[in-house]
């Protein structure tokens, strides 16, 4: 089962929930840090057995001797990564998403492909957790292909937790696709609620089962709770606004290790996500 941890707003506690969920899982689990622009799950896990692998995307390389300047490649590319108007094409590799379309539509077979490194995947281990994190190179603005490469490390079976980037844009969609269940982390503030609504719209569009975790419960107001009740969204967990949690976080410690009284919270979160996911599967099966 693949559980993705996402949020609309940044800084609500996605990584806190992800790493503590992973450690509380009674068995081996893969934790994928898909926030490749600023991965941070490793800060909370003492890891060893580090491995690193480079991730390239395929970008076009034009053989100008075979090009007749027809411009098909430029008309095809939605990102203007290859441009031609009766001239030899210009390639802007940093704009290329690596789809390979230009090479396919070129009638002269003048476009080949070459690797362009966009980042690395780092794999390491910490007790029951195998941490797989993408790290986008500085200056690269192309997160989804690296996120897809990180997710390609998932085997067919077993438990996995995906720590998503914040927001509701392409990198988040790339992370959530194929998840079995989505945990949306929010804080009980007007800003938290505003971005939670955007995130709810997104997961409904993706047709994924989801529930909400309220972090820093006790600050703000009750509007997130009212919203969840009205929308019939399961409230999975409330993490109290406890200064000791922030202190443990600032030292890079896991909440479930520094403050063992919170272990049961995360165990119940895991149980609830598994139960809710099973219910969704069964209702799909009945409907099918």
């Amino acid at each position, binding site marked *: 089962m693949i559980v993705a941890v996402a949020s609309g707003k940044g800084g609500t506690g996605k990584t806190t929930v992800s790493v503590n969920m992973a450690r509380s899982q009674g068995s081996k689990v893969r934790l994928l840090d898909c926030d490749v622009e600023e991965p941070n799950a490793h800060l909370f896990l003492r890891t060893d057995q580090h491995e690193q692998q480079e991730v390239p995307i395929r970008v076009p390389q034009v053989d100008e001797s075979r090009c007749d300047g027809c411009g098909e490649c430029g008309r095809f590319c939605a990102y203007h990564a290859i441009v031609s108007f009766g001239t030899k094409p210009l390639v*802007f590799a940093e704009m290329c998403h690596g789809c390979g379309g230009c090479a396919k539509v070129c009638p002269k077979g003048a476009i080949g492909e070459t690797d362009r490194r966009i980042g690395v995947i780092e794999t390491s281990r910490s007790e029951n957790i195998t941490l797989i994190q993408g790290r986008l190179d500085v200056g690269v603005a192309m997160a989804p292909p690296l996120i897809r490469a990180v997710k390609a490390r998932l085997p067919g079976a077993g438990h996995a937790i995906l720590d998503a980037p914040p927001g509701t844009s392409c990198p988040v969609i790339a992370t959530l696709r194929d998840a079995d269940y989505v945990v949306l982390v929010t804080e009980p503030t007007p800003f938290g609620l505003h971005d939670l609504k955007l995130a709810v719209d997104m997961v409904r569009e993706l047709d994924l089962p989801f529930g909400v975790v309220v972090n820093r419960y006790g600050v703000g107001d009750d509007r997130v709770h009212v919203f969840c009740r009205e929308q019939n969204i399961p409230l999975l967990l409330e993490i109290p606004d406890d200064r000791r949690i922030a202190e443990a976080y600032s030292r890079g410690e896991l909440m479930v290790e520094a403050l063992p009284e919170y272990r049961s919270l995360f165990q119940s979160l895991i149980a609830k996500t598994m139960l809710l996911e099973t219910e969704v599967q069964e209702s799909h099966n009945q409907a099918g």
Partner: protein
Amino acid sequence: MKIAFSTPGSKLDAPLDTRFGRAAKFIIYDLDSETFEVMDNRQNLNAAQGAGIQSAETVARSGAKVLVSGHCGPKAFRVLQAAGIQIFYSEGPTVAAALESYRQGSLAEAAGADVEGHWV
């Protein structure tokens, strides 16, 4: 010969837009016939990226051989150069004033991009 000007307006007394890639329109002025046409560029206003490249393509397709704008980024500069379009920077303030400056030969041709790209 045709000259392209970046502008938010549709007439010669409209301001010269100092941005190239995200200009709303281009006025394409024909020096021979002393007439002009307006090309819409609003598709680029909200483009996440690639606005400069696509604007440069639009100008190249218009048949213009000269571009007068406020600034130009590195990608747009490469495309314009490949299309054989000369680039002149002007502070306007209007399209008509920039046209007059061009006619008098008081605009210097740009040797390179004068602003950073937004995505590199």
